[in-house]
Each structure stands twice: as C-alpha cells, then as structure tokens.
C-alpha cells in the first residue's frame, strides 16, 4: 500500500473519530495542530486505525510516534 493512500484513509478516520470534516493531515502534523486530538481521543484513533487496517501496534510503537508521518510509516510496515 502506498503512503499517500494510507494518509488518505487515516485522514478519513481522523475526521470520523474526531467529528471534524475539516481536518487535513500531513506528515508533520502533531496533536498540537488539531484541537480535538488529545491523549484520550488518541486511544480512540488508534483503535479505529487498527480495526480499519486489520493490524496491531505494540505499546512501544504507539509511544514512539512524534507525528503523523511516523504513524504512517509504522502502518506501512505492517
């Protein structure tokens, strides 16, 4: 799966879980850029992403992401 495709699908998940159609994601996007994205909604996003792509992240992977780009890299590697 190519990264752009993953980005688009993840963006859709963000819009859905955070209930905001205007969210636009880039590689460098972090939680500071999106108001609704806090530590609690972060878990909901992870669950939704895991369900969608049918993958499972490890705790270490989850704690290691500094931005959306790193999250996408992990997804691509699964």
């Amino acid at each position, binding site marked *: 799966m190519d990264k752009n495709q993953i980005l688009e699908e993840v963006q859709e998940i963000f819009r859905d879980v955070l209930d905001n159609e205007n969210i636009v994601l880039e590689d460098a996007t972090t939680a500071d850029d999106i108001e609704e994205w806090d*530590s*609690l*909604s972060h*878990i909901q996003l*992870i*669950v939704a992403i895991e369900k969608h792509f049918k993958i499972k992240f490890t*705790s270490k992977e*989850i*704690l*290691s992401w500094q931005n959306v780009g790193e999250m996408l890299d992990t997804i691509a590697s699964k």
Partner: protein
Amino acid sequence: MVFNSLPFVLFFVVVFTLYWSAPGRAKLQNWVLLLASYFFYGYASWKMLPLLLVSTIAFYAIGRGIYRTENEKTSSRMTSLGVVLGIGLLVYFKYLNFFIDEFSRMLAGFGLENNIHSFGIIMPLGISFFTFRLISYVLDIHHGKYKPTEDFVTFASYVAFFPCILSGPIDRPKFMGQLTAARIFDYDTAVDGCRQILWGLFKKVVIADNCATYVDTVWGDVSAQSGSTLVLAAVLYSFQLYADFSGYSDMAIGIGKLLNLKVAKNFNYPFFALNMADFWRRWHMSLTSWLTDYVFMPLNIRFRDWGQWGMILAIVINMFLVGIWHGANWTYAVFGLYHGLLFIPLILTGAFQKKAKIHTYEKVDVPVLADCIKMFLTFVLVCIGQLIFRANSVGELGLYLAGICKANIISMPYLHYRYIPAFIALIIMLFVEWKSRKQDHALMIQSLNVSVRWIIYITLLVTTFSFSGIPVSYIYFQF
C-alpha cells in the same frame, strides 16, 4: 525548615545572595542550588542525606547506561531496574511495616499466634516526591523523550531542589533544561514570586492552621459532636487541606520565581470543578499528571480493545495508586477506590473526555445556576473523600459517618468567635480565586494601581501576623 520560619528566611537570604552574585555562570548557580538543597534536606533529616545522594548517583548512572546502550533488551532491562529500584525504595520505607503488620494480623486471625512485628523503619522525608523525579527520569530517557544530563550537579540539584523536595510540586526532567544556561535576574518574575509567596503564606497561616484547630478538636472526640458540627468540620477540612497544600505549593513556586526558575503548577482552583474528572485536573496536578503519563496512558493503551470498560479499569487502578501513594493505611486505599469509582458514570456518559467549561452570566461574573449546582455537588463528593483521607482508620471513618446521620444534624454547629478571622479569610480566598480563575495564581495583580497593590500586600501581611493559627505541620510533609 518550614518556609514560614526565621531559619528558612535566613537560609534563603544567603542562598539568594550567593545565587545571584554569580551572574552569567550557570555552573556556579547550580552548585549553589545543590549545596543549598542538601543543606536544607540535611537540616530536616541529616540521617537520610546518604540515601538521597546514593539514590541520585544510582539513577544518574542508570540514565547514562540506558542512553549509551545500543541493545534494545539491555535498555529495557536497565529501565526496569530503575523503576523497580525507585518503587522498591518507596515500598520499603512506606509500606513494608504495614505489610508486615497486616500479615501478622492475618496469621493471628487464623489462630496462628506469632511474634512477627514490624521494625522501626523511619520514612525519609520527601521520599514520595524525589523518587518520582528519579523514576520519570529513567522512563523519559528510555522513551527517547529526554537525553540524560552529562552534568551530575545539574541532575542532583533537580532531584533535591529545596523548595520542592519536601512536598512537591513534582517537576519532570525537562526542568533541567532551565539549569543549562545561566539564569538572569528578572525583576518582574521575582516580584510575582513574592506575591505568590504572600498569598500562599496567607492561606496556610490564616486559613489552614485555624481550620486545623477546629477540625482536630472535632476529630479528637467524634462521638460527642452534633451532626451539624461534623458536617461543618468536614467542609472546613477540605478547605484546610487545600489552603495548606496549595499554600505550600504557592510558596515553593514563588521561591522558584525568585531564582528565575519555573516550577510545575500544582493547583488550578479545584473548588470550581464541575465534575470529579475536572477536579482531578485541578488538584495536586503534578502528581496526577505524573500518574497519567506513566500509569494511566500506558494502561489505557494496553486495555484499548475493551472499550469504555478498559478505560474504567485503567482509571480505577490509577486512582487507587493516587490513594496509596499517600501512605500505608486502608483508608488511603479506600480513598483511591472511592475516587476511581466516581469516574465510572463520567466515562460511560462521555463526560470524562470532554473539557469542562464554566459558563457565567452575561451581566454578572457569576457561574450560571446549573454550573453552581455542579460545583456544589462536586464539592460534596470531594468532602466525603477528604473524610476518608483524614480518618486514621476505617473504623474511625465509620464512626464519623454514623455521627453525621443523627437527628441533631439540624442544629447549630459548634462555633466560636476565635474562628471568625479564618471564616472571613476563607470567603475572601474563594472570592479572590474566583476572580483570578484564569490566572496562574490568585495574586497576579501587576495591572492594578500601585497604591492599591500595596494596600493589598499590607492587609495580607497584617492579617497573616495578627490571625495566625497555632502552627501546624504542613500536611503533605508526612507523605
């Protein structure tokens, strides 16, 4: 040394002078902090000084080890060693006696008379606070959030930082970022620090110490009190605890400002909380955020497939730990569980995830009725929790609660004119804090006219000296 005492004032005058007489020399300033902190701690408890030093050295070494190793497994093992060591220290000094006594009692309950008894382990002052600094250091390095400090003096001053070592706030390793460059004296920050110290002093001496006399008298003879007195004492205890602890935190933060160092915020006007989740985002913030980052979030991630019930389990464990962090007593365990369970309806309704926002009327700066009711209900729940916290045993708690449920709850509570200054101060505190609710601390009055400011300072000082209660030890020194 207690902040509001002559020895401390003398101590701090010396420290302040030495610290600022080395402008532009970070290393020298850090040495002053380190020596001052060790002197401060040694003055309070010289026998435990070696423990502080040795644990600091151990964690400094572990931190460097974790960072240097290329091997993932070794890194994890060293981190675990650090965490186990830190928790081990806490368990040994705080909880071992309790476990031994309970074990002995359990055996006796089974008819196995035994001679097992706890030995006199003395709890080092501040251990609950500095071990948390040490543990967060190794965890942050392991997660790549922080690079270990090359300079031991910087690290040791962070761990032992004297304004905070006895009762917090608990700063994270990024505090050390402030110690790498030389601090330059900032007049506005220093003055703001003085204001915060004054406010903290006022709360502690006028409100907390005076309420303590009333509350201690009541708890000293629970069965003799009317229901209404017990209710009043419960309310006053909540205010006493807040005034004492937030007063101390304000002084610690203010002292930090005099050294141009930013210390973590510990309170955000908790009595304006709209629900229990909101309360815990405003009370003892440095502890709750520590547990959120290192316990709650990892648990939440682990339990994420269990939906809301996963989150509930994570929060109950988290709050249970908040409770027993305070010490080895069943009452603290009950306190923790009580608060954990109160989160359940908030999580199930989704209120937990939402930010609680206070709405005020347009014309008058007063919360809308619905929010007043929420604040009141939250306050009632908090007071009940503080009763659990205050009781020396579950039995004593039961006695107190039974005492409230008596017919004479409809009566005048015990009152005495000596408490009038404290009651007035309490009302003033609530009013001032409401007005300052969006500010870092209640006395950020730099924008007021200079004469008004000085009237306020003098009033507070005179009140503090005239109406000081019988000095009571800071409540959080015992944790």
